[in-house]
């Protein structure tokens, strides 16, 4: 049996009996209903679950941090009156044409193939409206995406699907992808049902077959090679184009240091809450470290090398609100990237398709079978009828609205902390609600001066 012939598993735990309380039933914390469903699904199919979206388990996150607004010892700025700048320059270490974005919230790499052409166009429209960048993905650069994106980052991936020097020269930045937060060390798998003639053509593969993306680059094997590879890309683009290096968060201290050593202009760190189009659930939930834990390690590496704010840091993986944006920046990021949240803004998991989600064995808010190509919202599909449901103009407007809200929310918090630019936020503006978050984010536990693992923090 091929994986494509396996019925879609239920996305939500079975409903509990109405009289569960009266019966005194107690759910096992170890074998809860979702776990039971996973075991039953594995037993029925003999294949591990492949899905999209990203990690669903609860891990320490930005919600476990709080801002210390100004009172006596800090002086706040007036909300809606005093200026709080949001712009960011990315890639001015070596490139002659760095990116100057109006908001530090960017769109993470998502491939044409995983996403429909309309979805890619909508991402470009939304990002351009607010002066930020969007990013290609494993499928290469589409004319729609380039045409609608004022600032487009071209991903240089292990698969090199669709890679060509013309597109390299059209890009505003090049992002060398070494890993993804949802699956550090793992390659991709785009199942055959999404491989239309156009997708197959861009990837130089037959229509309808499963397409495996490599987990490692074919022509270099380590940081010394990467340094030479970056040199080659700079030569091809005449040193105009910033070079990003994206890592999946697992060893961010060492990976960031080696990316800097290799010559990266920008380091992108993607935490385990980052999304994916399709990979093994066991991978999504069990490989990598939380975004919160990754940022201080990456910042430490940049600081020790004397390049913090010179080699910019973009953080992604579970960014949802302006508070998340502000917290990431306070911990030392120069910008953030959003993926899953951007898809939701476009219309992913929209309740108006509730009946169709139910027919697929899922529900609005739970749909994650992006690999199946049957997305009712028309976003993670190549089906012409489904993808035509997404109006790229209207969806782009929704994304632009969302990006504006994220930016304004972050500004509101920054002003309350007395900051005239988002980049002036600092770890001193934060405390942690839990010991775990305190230790990972390296900010004091609220109400104390204690940071677990940091000597002299009492």
């Amino acid at each position: 049996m091929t994986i494509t012939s396996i019925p879609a598993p239920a996305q939500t735990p079975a409903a509990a009996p109405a009289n569960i309380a009266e019966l005194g039933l107690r759910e096992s914390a170890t074998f809860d209903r979702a776990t039971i469903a996973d075991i039953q699904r594995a037993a029925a199919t003999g294949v591990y679950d492949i899905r999209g979206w990203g990690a669903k388990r609860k891990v320490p996150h930005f919600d476990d941090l709080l801002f210390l607004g100004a009172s006596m010892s800090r002086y706040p700025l007036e909300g809606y009156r005093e200026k709080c700048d949001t712009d960011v320059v990315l890639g001015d270490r070596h490139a002659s044409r760095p990116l100057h974005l109006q908001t530090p919230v960017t769109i993470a790499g998502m491939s044409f193939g995983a996403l429909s052409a309309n979805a890619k166009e909508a991402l470009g429209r939304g990002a351009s409206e607010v002066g930020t960048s969007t990013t290609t993905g494993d499928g290469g650069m589409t004319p729609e995406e380039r045409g609608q994106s004022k600032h487009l980052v071209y991903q240089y991936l292990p698969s090199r699907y669709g890679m060509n020097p013309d597109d390299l020269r059209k890009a505003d930045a090049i992002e060398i992808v070494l890993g993804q937060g949802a699956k550090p060390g793992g390659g991709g798998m785009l199942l055959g049902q999404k491989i239309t003639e156009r997708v197959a053509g861009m990837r130089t593969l037959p229509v309808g077959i499963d397409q495996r993306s490599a987990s490692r680059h074919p022509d270099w094997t380590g940081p010394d090679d990467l340094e030479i590879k970056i040199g080659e890309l700079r030569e091809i683009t005449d040193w105009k184009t910033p070079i990003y290096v994206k890592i999946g968060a697992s060893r961010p201290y060492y990976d960031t240091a080696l990316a800097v050593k290799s010559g990266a202009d920008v380091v992108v760190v993607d935490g385990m809450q980052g999304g994916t189009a399709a990979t093994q659930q066991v991978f999504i939930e069990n490989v990598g470290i939380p975004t919160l834990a990754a940022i201080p390690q990456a910042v430490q590496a940049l600081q020790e090398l004397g390049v913090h704010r010179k080699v910019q840091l973009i953080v992604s993986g579970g960014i949802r609100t302006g508070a998340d944006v502000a917290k990431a920046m306070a911990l030392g990021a120069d910008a953030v990237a959003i993926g899953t949240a951007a898809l939701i803004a476009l219309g992913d998991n929209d309740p108006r398709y509730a009946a169709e989600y139910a027919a697929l064995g899922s529900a609005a808010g739970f749909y994650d079978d992006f690999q199946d190509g049957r997305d009712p919202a028309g976003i993670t599909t190549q089906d012409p009828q489904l993808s035509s449901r997404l109006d790229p103009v209207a969806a782009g407007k929704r994304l632009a609205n969302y990006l504006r809200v994220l930016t304004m929310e972050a500004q509101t918090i920054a002003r309350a902390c007395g900051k005239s630019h988002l980049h002036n936020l600092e770890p001193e503006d934060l405390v942690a609600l839990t010991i775990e978050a305190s230790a990972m984010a390296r900010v004091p536990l609220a109400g104390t001066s204690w940071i677990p693992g940091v000597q002299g923090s009492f």
Partner: protein
Amino acid sequence: MVTLTAPEALAPAATPAVLDLADAPVRELNQSLHNAVDGQSWTVTNPEGKHSLAVGINADVSVTVEGHAGYYAAGMHQKGDVTINGNAGVGLAENIMSGTVHVKGDASQSAAATGHGGLVVIDGNAGARCGISMKGVDIVVGGNIGHMSAFMAQAGRLVVCGDAGDALGDSIYEARIYVQGTVASLGADCIEKPLREEHLAELAELLAAAGRPDNPADFKRYGSARNLYHFHVDNSTAY
């Protein structure tokens, strides 16, 4: 002192401009090539294994490197011809799109990796992972190739006049491989296939293009069994 002549002063097919890398940086070479117009030719002296020589060429020019090249020589090559009268390092002609790249000596690993088109000729041997993820390029190797060559090769033709190392064509898609000598082992889903008339004809064409005297009938053909094109639970130990 740089002996470079300004490209606009060069008439097509004129005497090659000489760029001596003992005096000029690689940046100057590549910028000159990016500013070039069709018909120009260049001779590069004293390369001394420098990296990224003649990368990103996008005009119908001719470049001859007199000596050994380092990593990524003729990377992303798009038009024209590059000849290296020496050896080439890792990633020779990586992601070549069209045109020709000819190495008179040996090439290190990952030669012509991810190449989309064009012809890469290596008169000597090539290291491991030759033609890895090739996507349409044609590669002719006069000598042997190392292990894991044509891994995940998607399209194009790889001709090996000598022997092939282990795991040849592992996880191969639609690329075609011709080997005259021995194959240490075949990778997952790679099998020997019949050498029919059309294959003899295309092999003869490739050998001729590479200036090789070999007889097509002496080669064996390898390609994908296409058993792993869809993930299948029963094949989980085949990868």
